[in-house]
């Protein structure tokens, strides 16, 4: 009875503007075995997760475009400028996506957009674009929770059944487990998100923001090997990064001022480098994240972990999580930068899942909000 559905998704809660167009095949389509088609480098490949009875249906990504607003090293992106960037780029991206997807307007079922959480002004720009498209093309609107978007895309791409999810990005740090039609938050960062901590640290050391500060920290950390002492703030199932940030910023300033005279306390011969600071920070914050994830897994009795969000691209984090999961007889799932980093396709996907259950956002309710808890969403497409 369900025919194939297509949705457009718009994302812009931070400095990445994403436009995605997704296709959910109709239910009559038999679940194909994994396609031999190498979709690793193509944005319009078909993804067929391991065929299981209850996993999300195989989805087709018709277009997944993104443009990032980058600020110079030593600075962060401001809401005002970011919103201006999104306004400047959204039409172009939508046009390009439509062209790439080769879909007809009448095939589109809904326009999905990020309702929240995120930064106010950028969210607003994207909300306006979504509303305009909806009015223009006479399509229903679907407001989507950004975090749920990440989770659903992660599940679809990796095929993970019911994992504990670690959602880590510049704006969010949450450990989530699904229960009774809600994504329950088991643990979270009490002050700043881990990505934010990394980004701000990058600023103090004037590390480039291109392509992303976290990426550059990761590369530098690969050549670091001194583990200095940072406060380790795990409070039960939650974590706190402001203390660490303060200390590591202090260290960064000390490094700049020391001019090579700051030596490794163990050997007293080799000087501490930027790489060592990056290494120290990563090892510490990632250990904290793996720890709270492990706690949630023990609590819930799960063995699988899914990492989503921009910081999830980090290979060291994936490695640490993998070792932990293996010790528990489980495994870790992660996606690549196309899906880890904020994108429009995840919004289209999650929005379409909701829309197929009858969900729609009326025009007068198509607002946006900076605070939108993951567990506020009724996940009625799962049982």
């Amino acid at each position: 009875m369900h025919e194939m559905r297509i949705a457009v998704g718009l994302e812009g809660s931070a400095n990445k503007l994403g436009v995605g167009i997704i296709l959910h095949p109709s239910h009559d389509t038999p679940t194909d075995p994994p396609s031999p088609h190498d979709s690793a480098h193509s944005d319009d490949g078909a993804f067929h997760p391991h065929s299981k009875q209850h996993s999300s249906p195989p989805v087709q990504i018709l277009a997944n475009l993104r443009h990032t607003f980058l600020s110079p090293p030593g600075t962060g992106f401001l809401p005002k400028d970011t919103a201006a960037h999104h306004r400047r780029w959204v039409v172009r991206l939508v046009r390009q996506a439509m062209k790439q997807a080769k879909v007809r307007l009448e095939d589109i079922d809904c326009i999905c957009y990020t309702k929240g959480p995120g930064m106010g002004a950028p969210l607003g720009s994207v909300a306006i674009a979504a509303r305009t498209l909806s009015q223009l093309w006479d399509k229903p609107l679907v407001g989507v929770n950004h975090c749920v978007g990440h989770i659903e895309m992660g599940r679809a791409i990796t095929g993970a059944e019911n994992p504990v999810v670690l959602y880590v990005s510049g704006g969010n740090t949450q450990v989530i487990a699904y229960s009774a039609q809600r994504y329950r938050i088991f643990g979270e960062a009490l002050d700043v998100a881990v990505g934010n901590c990394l980004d701000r640290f990058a600023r103090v050391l004037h590390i480039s923001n291109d392509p992303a500060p976290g990426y550059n920290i990761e590369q530098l950390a690969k050549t670091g090997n001194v583990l200095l002492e940072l406060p380790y703030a795990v409070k039960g199932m939650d974590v706190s990064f402001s203390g660490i940030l303060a200390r590591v910023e202090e260290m960064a300033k000390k490094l700049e001022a020391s001019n090579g005279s700051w030596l490794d306390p163990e050997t007293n011969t080799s000087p501490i480098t930027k790489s060592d600071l990056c290494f120290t920070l990563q090892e510490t914050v990632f250990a904290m994240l793996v720890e709270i994830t492990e706690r949630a897994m023990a609590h819930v009795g799960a063995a699988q972990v899914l990492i989503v969000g921009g910081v999830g691209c980090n290979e060291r984090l994936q490695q640490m999580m993998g070792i932990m999961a293996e010790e528990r007889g489980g495994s870790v799932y992660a996606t690549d930068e196309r899906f880890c980093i904020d994108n429009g396709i995840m919004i289209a996907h999650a929005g379409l899942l909701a829309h197929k259950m009858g969900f729609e956002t009326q025009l007068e309710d198509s607002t946006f909000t900076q605070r939108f808890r993951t567990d506020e969403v009724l996940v009625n497409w799962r049982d």
Partner: protein
Amino acid sequence: MTEPIPLSPSAHDRLPIPFNTSPEPLVLIAQGAESLLYKTVFLSLSQPAALKIRPVKKWRHPTLDKRLTRARILAEARVLVKLSGEGIAAGGGGRKVKDPKREGEGVGGMRGLVPAVLGLDWEGGWLVTEWIEGGTIKEAIYRGSRARTMGGSRVGLSGDDGVEELRGLLRKMGEVVGKLHACGVVHGDLTTSNMMLRPLTTIPDKSFESDGHDETSPQPSVAASASMQPQPTTTPNDSLSGDLVLIDFGLATQSVSDEDRAVDLYVLERAFGSTHPREEELFACVLHAYAHGEGSGMKGKPGKTVIRKLEDVRMRGRKKSMLGRVDVFIGKCEGCQHGPLLAAFRQHLLITEILVGHHYHWPAMA
């Protein structure tokens, strides 16, 4: 605490010295994220003990791992020693003089209500404490709850439907937590699984040999429940009476702040509600006893202050999302061919400069 798990061969290899050569097999009682808990004996066959091992986490940097393990074992031990009042912590400089003023006011105030520390090795990553007989409070409440359903007909329970017994138990809980807070310690992980109900009539389990139990028979390596009693000296505890003993101080901190105490109670409240939904309404007894119970160290103003703080914590506990209403206006674009395609909304609030001076040219409908 979860059901015991048979000891896997690989786990045996990981046992630290001296336990890897223990004559008595170790029984794994619980496996949390942080640590493994075993029942064993310590220093003598007649001293049952709880062994908590913090295994090495290979995914952590080894330096960090060592640092954390050491810090956590020591922190837990220090708290227990302070509460039990053993050693130097009890009355400055090694003098073991009982100071009436300080009784219940810090050091030693919880003797008998928390396990005593028997030994530790921070390099080896283990801590051994006194074994507490009996079952968890969680199990006790389940018993009481079932009795309510059955009309209170079980032996040892009185009251209309056993509610009085439960209330008594919950009052005890409130008082013990109050005592704990008065000693300047916050548990950090209060749940009904972290509290034991030690039967009053059981003499401290001093001897594995002297009760007629066949000492040559092998110790059970898999127990059916966490309330293992290798040789019961009383009938299994049907009633809800006994001493309420707090265990698992792995997340405990030394604090006297109202905020920390309120959060401690909040954690208990939430855990209680999700584990014992039928008894959720009775939880008020716990809080009442905390602030008003005779045996509570927080009786009176201190307790009431914390309860008030608890209300704040409850509100904050869920960062309420703020779904604000933001209305937007996009006017018709003057002098632009695409004018009619721009949407206009009914609104009364213009926000920011998002829209000022910008107009959009959308792909045409065709």
